[in-house]
């Protein structure tokens, strides 16, 4: 599914098998979005959280 980048209007391809919580990036400007599935065939993108000091593995 294709979505538009809110920053640069680039086209972001969201894979069909993506899960809510997965991160996709705009190929044009690099802005990261978090996938939010709102139904079996509908996807919304919300801005991804910035990396925190306590992030890691």
């Amino acid at each position, binding site marked *: 599914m294709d979505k538009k980048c809110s920053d640069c209007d680039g086209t972001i391809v969201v894979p069909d098998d993506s*899960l*809510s*919580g*997965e*991160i996709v990036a705009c190929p044009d400007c690099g802005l990261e979005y*978090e*996938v939010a599935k709102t139904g079996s065939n509908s996807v919304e993108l919300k801005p*991804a*959280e910035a990396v*925190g*000091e*306590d*992030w*890691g*593995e």
Partner: protein
Amino acid sequence: MTIEISLVYDRIRWEEKAISKAIENRGLLLRRIDAKELVLDSSKGDQEVERDLGSLVLQRCVSYFRGLHIASFLEAKGSKVINSSEVSRICGNKFLTTLFLEKGGSPTPKTLFTFSGAAAKNAADVLGYPSVLKPIVGSWGRGVARLNDKESASALIEMREDTNGLYSQIYYIQKHIPRPPRDIRTIVIGDELICANYRYSPEGEWRTNVAKGGRIEYYEITSELENLVLIASEAVGGGILGVDAMEGPEGLVVHEVNSNVEFRGASQVSNVDIAVKIVDYLVQEAKR
């Protein structure tokens, strides 16, 4: 009765996706819980929490503090959390990891801790150069700096003094281990060493983190490595862990244990399906 596993996450990485698929392929029930949307109610009873969030929880938050506190809540309400809050607490904090590795008899580089920049400069002098300054919280090699000499140590420590992170004024300075340009990442699940791989530093970089572009290569497990990482795993409380070792002049030493281990790189060179092994372990824990 079919086992249900709750996966608590704040970001679905390659690993969470692989684990989700392995859970579903096994025919188990999977409940995905976005930590960012949780509202936890202290007054709720154990049964209510179990109904809402499950009794067996795999905690996979990228945020250390988020995961630690959610695990603590769930455990207080009677749920079983893997990795436990205690294991997360120890592994998410290098200061504690070092203490527990030492206590558990795991070889680990000598480390000095200070609580001011001035004391940190003295500690670097005592330890000698080069040595390694690490933030005690955080991962992927971020903020890890080699103190090559007194001058660079002073500059880096002064820069740290000017930061206002939660733990910035706790200084962790570790003896530098002269090693080949690589370290060894192992995945330990329960009491089993699942797989191991070399992580080579990329060109122009001394750190080996995959996040820094480190190259992965298969490592044939030896009994020396197995003994080492199983002791380290037990020292921090066990579970699903990424134990990192270095080849020092006096043998292998463990320098880090990750309780939210990323294994995408390891999967590229491993003969073992790590996600399936994780699910095997969860099933085993569910039956305990």
